[in-house]
C-alpha cells in the first residue's frame, strides 16, 4: 500500500491519505459496486431509450409491453437470453471462445472507473470523490482500455473457428485500430490545454464559476475541432452506426459474434452499449466539464443536494445529451462503405487532428513564453499547411491507382 502511495496512485483520494481501516475499504467497495450497478442500469435504460427514440423517429411505437412504457424490455431480453442454450462450435478454441465476451466487457467498465461522476462527498465519515479510482495518468488509462477492447472482438471472431466471424473480426480490428489514432490525437487537443493526464484535474480546470464558464473554462471551445473528431472517432470505436460495419447484419450475418448464443451473445451487446455510455462519459469529462454546472442557489452551498446530487445530475444531463446524439445518428445515417470508412479515418481525421495539435501547441507555448501571438500563430498555421501539402501530395487522388508492391 505504501508503494502505491509513493507512486501517487492513491494519494489524491483524501480517504486514502490517512490510516487504511475497514471503513475505508468499505467506502472503496461501495464506490466500485455503485459504479458497476450504475453502469449496468444505465445500459439497460439506454437500450430501452434508444429503441423508443428510434421508434419515434420512424413513426413507430417501440417496445411498450414489459413494464410501464416498456422500460423492462431490456431486462426481459436479458432473462430470455440467460436461459437459452449456449452452443459452442466443434472447431472453436473453447477457452478463448468463452473468455472473449468478458474481455470486451471489462475494458468498458474499467474505463468508467477513472471518470469523475460527482464532486467531493463524505461516505461513512470519510471525505472522498465520486470516482472509483483517480489515476495520475487517467487519460492514458482510458486510451489503453479502449485499445484492449479490440481483443475481445478479435479473439471472438478468431476463436469461433468459422469463416464469417473471422472476416467480421478482421474488419473490426482494422476499423478499431484505424480510429484509435484519431481518437488519441483528439484527446491530445485537450491535454495540450489542460497540461495534465489526470481526469480529475481536467475536470477541476473546467469548474463552474458562472454561465460564462461554458465558453471560458470548458475545453470544447479551445479544442473545438478535436471535439468533433473525438465524437466521430468514438462512434467508430464503439461500432455504432454509421460505422457499424463490424456487425453489418446484411453482409456478415452478425460479424464476429455469429457463433455466439445465449448469455455470451448478450454480454457482447452489453459491452457494446456500455462502451457507448463510457465513451460519452469520457467526452463529457474531457470537453464538457464533467460534473461542473450551476448549483441550486436557493439551497445551502454545502447542503446534501448541492454537494451530492447536483454535480451528478449535471454529469448525467451532459451524458444523456451525447447519447441522444448517438441515437439520432443511428436513425439518420446509412452505413458507410468500407473504403469510405478507411478514407475518413486515415485521410481526414488523423491529418486534421495532427495539424490542430501542432497549431494549438504553438499557441499554448507562445502564451506561456510571452511570444508575440501575431507572429507565432501565422507561422504555425503556415507550417501546418505546408505539412498538410506534403501529405496531400502523398495521398492517392480519385482516378489514380496506387503503385503495387513487387
Amino acid at each position, binding site marked *: 500500500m505504501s508503494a502505491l502511495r509513493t507512486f501517487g496512485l492513491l494519494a489524491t483520494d483524501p480517504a486514502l491519505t490517512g490510516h487504511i481501516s475497514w471503513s475505508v475499504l468499505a467506502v472503496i467497495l461501495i464506490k466500485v459496486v455503485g459504479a458497476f450497478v450504475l453502469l449496468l442500469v444505465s445500459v439497460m435504460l439506454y437500450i430501452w431509450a434508444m429503441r423508443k*427514440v428510434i421508434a419515434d423517429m*420512424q*413513426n413507430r*411505437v417501440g417496445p411498450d409491453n414489459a413494464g410501464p412504457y416498456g422500460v423492462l424490455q431490456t431486462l426481459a431480453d436479458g432473462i430470455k437470453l440467460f436461459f437459452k442454450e449456449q452452443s459452442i462450435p466443434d472447431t472453436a478454441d473453447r477457452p478463448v471462445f468463452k473468455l472473449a465476451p468478458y474481455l470486451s466487457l471489462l475494458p468498458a467498465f474499467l474505463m468508467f472507473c477513472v471518470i469523475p461522476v460527482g464532486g467531493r462527498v463524505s461516505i461513512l465519515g470519510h471525505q472522498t470523490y465520486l470516482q472509483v479510482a483517480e489515476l495520475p495518468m487517467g487519460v492514458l488509462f482510458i486510451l489503453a482500455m479502449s485499445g484492449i477492447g479490440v481483443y475481445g472482438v478479435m479473439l471472438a471472431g478468431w476463436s469461433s473457428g468459422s469463416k464469417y466471424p473471422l472476416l467480421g473480426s478482421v474488419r473490426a480490428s482494422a476499423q478499431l485500430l484505424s480510429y484509435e489514432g484519431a481518437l488519441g490525437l483528439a484527446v491530445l487537443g485537450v491535454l495540450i490545454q489542460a497540461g495534465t493526464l489526470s481526469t480529475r484535474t481536467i475536470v477541476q480546470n473546467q469548474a463552474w464559476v458562472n454561465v460564462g464558464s461554458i465558453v471560458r473554462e470548458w475545453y470544447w471551445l479551445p479544442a473545438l475541432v478535436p471535439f468533433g473528431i473525438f465524437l466521430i472517432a468514438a462512434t467508430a470505436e464503439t461500432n455504432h452506426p454509421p460505422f457499424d460495419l463490424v456487425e453489418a447484419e446484411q453482409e456478415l450475418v452478425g460479424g464476429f459474434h455469429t457463433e455466439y448464443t445465449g448469455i455470451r451473445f448478450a454480454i457482447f451487446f452489453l459491452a457494446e452499449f456500455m462502451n457507448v455510455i463510457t465513451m460519452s462519459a469520457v467526452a463529457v469529462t474531457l470537453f464538457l466539464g464533467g460534473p461542473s454546472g450551476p448549483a441550486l442557489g436557493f439551497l445551502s452551498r454545502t447542503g446534501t443536494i448541492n454537494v451530492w446530487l447536483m454535480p451528478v445530475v449535471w454529469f448525467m444531463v451532459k451524458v444523456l445529451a451525447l447519447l441522444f446524439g448517438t441515437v*439520432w445518428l443511428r436513425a*439518420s445515417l446509412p452505413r458507410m462503405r468500407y473504403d469510405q470508412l478507411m478514407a475518413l479515418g486515415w485521410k481526414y481525421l488523423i491529418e486534421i487532428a495532427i495539424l490542430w495539435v501542432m497549431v494549438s501547441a504553438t499557441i499554448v507555448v507562445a502564451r506561456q513564453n510571452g511570444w508575440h501571438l501575431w507572429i507565432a500563430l501565422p507561422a504555425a498555421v503556415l507550417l501546418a499547411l505546408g505539412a498538410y501539402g506534403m501529405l496531400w501530395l502523398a495521398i492517392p487522388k480519385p482516378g489514380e491507382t496506387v503503385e503495387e508492391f513487387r
Partner: protein
Amino acid sequence: MGRLAGFGVTLRQMFKPRLTTDYPKEKSPRPERLHGRHVLNRYEDGMEKCIGCELCAGVCPARCIYVRGADNPTDDPVSPGERYGFVYEINYLRCIHCDLCVEACPTEAITETKLFEFSFTNRADAIYTKDQLLVDDDGRARRQPWELWDGHEDEHTSAWMRATSPSGSAAYEGRATWSGELGFGVRAAEQGQTNDDAPERDA
C-alpha cells in the same frame, strides 16, 4: 446543408402523431365486407335455411366444404323445402374466406360473421361440424372455446355481400334486401347501406 437535411427529417418525425393501433388491447373497426368464420342461418320460425343443394361445396375453390343432403322427414321437417343439409362440415385449415359459398347459396343459409380471431390447437377442432356452424335458438353463432368473440361480430353477417348476392342484382347495391331470420328478423343495415325503399325482387 444538403447532407445534414436527413437529421432534420428524423427529428421532425419524433413529433408527428403515431398511427399505430395497439392491436390486442384496442381494435380498429371491422371493414364492412370482412369475411370471417361462417354460420348456418335459420328462418324466424326456427327452420334451417340450408336445403342441402351442395352449390357451396361445388363453388368452393379450396374444397373445404363437405355437404350431404337428405330428404326431409315428413313428420318433423328440418327445412321448409324438400331436402335439408344432413351433413355440413367446413375445414378451416383449408378455407380461404373468399365468400363464394355465400354468393352461391340460393337461400342465404350460409353467411360469414366478422370473427377472424380463432386458433385451434388440434386438427380435429379445425373441422367445424353442422352442430358448431348452426346458429343457436336465439339466432346467434355458437361460440367455441378457442374463438375470441369480444364484440358483436355476429350481428352483421356478411350483410353487404347478401345485399348483392345472386338472388338480387347490381341495382340492390347499398340496400339491405335479405329475408328475415331467427333472432334478428330482418337485420339492421350496415354502414353504407339503407333499409328503406327496397326494390321488389326480380322474378
